[in-house]
């Protein structure tokens, strides 16, 4: 056998998709965002690695946003004398916070690993910053929910020292929770964007707005679902505003992402994102127009909650898909090279 043979043989078996060489990008069928891209890769293998994260993380994103929005609603309800909405908001915030902490700890494997992050504070790490934001927010949200709980106790029990103290801290803790809530909803966008995952990083300009809109919409949804209609006027306004913010910024995000917006439209992610938009829009319209009707309010609330969850799972999965396909790493960098030349530091 001549030494050349194995090479040639190998070359034949190699005539399959994924061999190094040019490959047409774009998958036909679904809406194509940009002209088809041609690019080279190493046997079609990924360049960047997808995050080793499971459904815990999008669940965490959803629950964190819901908690934050709920604390804002609870404080507003408290300050404007809407007790049922206040209760829904505080207990909803605590429940959502519980879910998000469970998801986080489940992702890390064991609780002690959460404390590993509290041993240091690092400004360059959104996860570190987020851990601290959560630590600043969580106790107030917890105390506000506990104060809410004391209202259910009989009058005599409420006069006892620790309980009475909680009762007096009722409003301050609720307001503090509301002050620290928005960063909880916003930082998760930085968490995703501060990576080399193409569809997360390229979204960094608009993603925080999408996420705070999504969080507020979900919390408004919970309010609509659980509070009596005579108290939900502000929540209906919030639902409409939050949904509009989310949908408009999501649209702008897709425009500014270039090729990396493509995974948002493909396959399962495409279905999630379409569902997210449909549910959010329907929930907002339902809340605005039919929010005084108990049944419609509840249905709109559910749609808003489901829409927010779909947004989080969709954006999460779009990023993972963009990391698995070298196209989304190579082509945007090539395009930038053609447009601007190599990225170089200039004083």
């Amino acid at each position, binding site marked *: 056998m001549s030494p050349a043979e194995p090479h040639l043989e190998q070359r034949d*078996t190699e005539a399959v998709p994924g061999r*190094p060489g040019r490959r047409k990008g774009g998958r036909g069928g679904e809406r194509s965002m940009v002209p088809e891209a041609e690019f080279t890769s190493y046997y079609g293998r990924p360049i960047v690695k997808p995050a080793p994260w499971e459904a815990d993380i999008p669940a965490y994103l959803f629950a964190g946003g819901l908690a934050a929005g709920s604390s804002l609603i609870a404080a507003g309800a408290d300050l404007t004398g809407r007790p049922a909405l206040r209760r829904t908001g505080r207990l909803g915030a605590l429940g959502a916070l519980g879910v998000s902490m469970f998801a986080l700890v489940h992702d890390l494997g064991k609780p002690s690993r959460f404390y590993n992050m509290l041993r240091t504070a690092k400004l360059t790490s959104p996860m570190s910053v987020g851990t601290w934001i959560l630590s600043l927010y969580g106790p107030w949200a917890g105390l506000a929910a506990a104060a809410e709980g004391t209202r259910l106790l009989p009058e005599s029990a409420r006069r006892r020292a620790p309980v009475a103290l909680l009762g007096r801290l009722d409003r301050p803790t609720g307001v503090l929770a509301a002050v620290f809530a928005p960063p909880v909803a916003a930082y998760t966008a930085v968490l995703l964007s501060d990576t080399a995952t193409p569809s997360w990083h390229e979204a960094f300009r608009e993603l925080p707005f999408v996420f*705070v809109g999504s969080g*507020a919409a979900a919390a408004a949804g919970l309010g609509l679902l659980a509070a009596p209609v005579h108290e939900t006027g502000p929540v209906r306004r919030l639902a409409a505003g939050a949904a509009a913010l989310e949908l408009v910024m999501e649209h702008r995000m897709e425009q500014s992402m270039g090729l990396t917006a493509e995974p948002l439209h493909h396959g399962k992610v495409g279905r999630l994102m379409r569902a997210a938009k449909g549910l959010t829009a329907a929930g907002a319209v339902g809340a605005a127009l039919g929010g005084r009707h108990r049944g419609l309010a509840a249905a709109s609330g559910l749609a808003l909650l489901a829409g927010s969850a779909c947004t989080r799972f969709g954006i999460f999965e779009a990023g993972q898909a963009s990391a698995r396909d070298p196209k989304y790493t190579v082509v945007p960098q090539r395009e930038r090279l053609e447009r601007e030349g190599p990225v170089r530091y200039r004083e």
Partner: protein
Amino acid sequence: MTSLFNDNDLWGPLDPSADAGYGEDRPARKGFFTDTSICIGCKACEVACKEWNDVPADHFDMTATSYDNSHSLNANQWRHVAFVERPAGPAPVDLGMPGVAPTDAVSAGSTAGGAGSTAGGLLDNGADAAPDFRWLMSSDVCKHCTHAACLDVCPTGSLFRSEFGTVVVQDDICNGCGYCVPACPYGVISRREGPDGSRNVGIAQKCTLCYDRLDAGKTPACAQACPTQSIQFGDVEELRERADARVAQLHEAGVMDARLYGNDPDDGVGGAGAFFLLLDEPEVYGMPPDPVVTTKDLPQMFRRATTAAVVMFAGAALSFLGRRP
């Protein structure tokens, strides 16, 4: 840039160990210049690294697309030799193969030698025509970036900058959060997922530039094992000069495809501590064409998120300001 960060903390040329706080008596920054033009794909580096660092075996099976059976850089593969089959390039030249010191391998005018890379052997064996393809081989490794995204985003401080300017994981501090994995623009670091019973499962792992060997004044295992001096270890400053000389030499010899990758301290990661001489586009070898550290945009991301948080607060407040029902 926000005032929260020092100049060039996140982007731009920098001495990384000085930035990390090491004093004047710190050693010179260490790194690799991997000259892929003389790599023969023997995988001695992969094996030496596994042996020295006790890196468990990965899934060794042929990928059925090339001679590459180690897939990619990952937690269990700190050196990875890429095998790329390409259509034949321009007229073959002598690249200075094993046994010839790389610095004087190519003298001007010696372009009548064998075919590029390993295809040279075919001609010597009497084949009557140059093959219409050539092999490109490249031993890839962690770049030990000046601005290392993995290190920047690590929330525990497990990833740290050594006095040699390298980026190292502390196994006992890493909590397995996995944030460093999607942060790396080269897809180098990953969490060890197995095999069962091996050390540090669930912990992020990558090349340490043989921290223990550097400490003892030794050469990293992979560079030591490389039979062709494709992997050259040394002070980054000096290696950059060597790389410039080598690429000029190759250009003079007519190998116009030769290019340096990662050597420029002004590039998207502030220059890599481990950089390369390549004979084709980076993506052909599985490397990003023009990577930029994600934290370059971090100040802007924080500003955006802050604005969004304010918008959320204001929006909620506004919806309660309306008239009572």
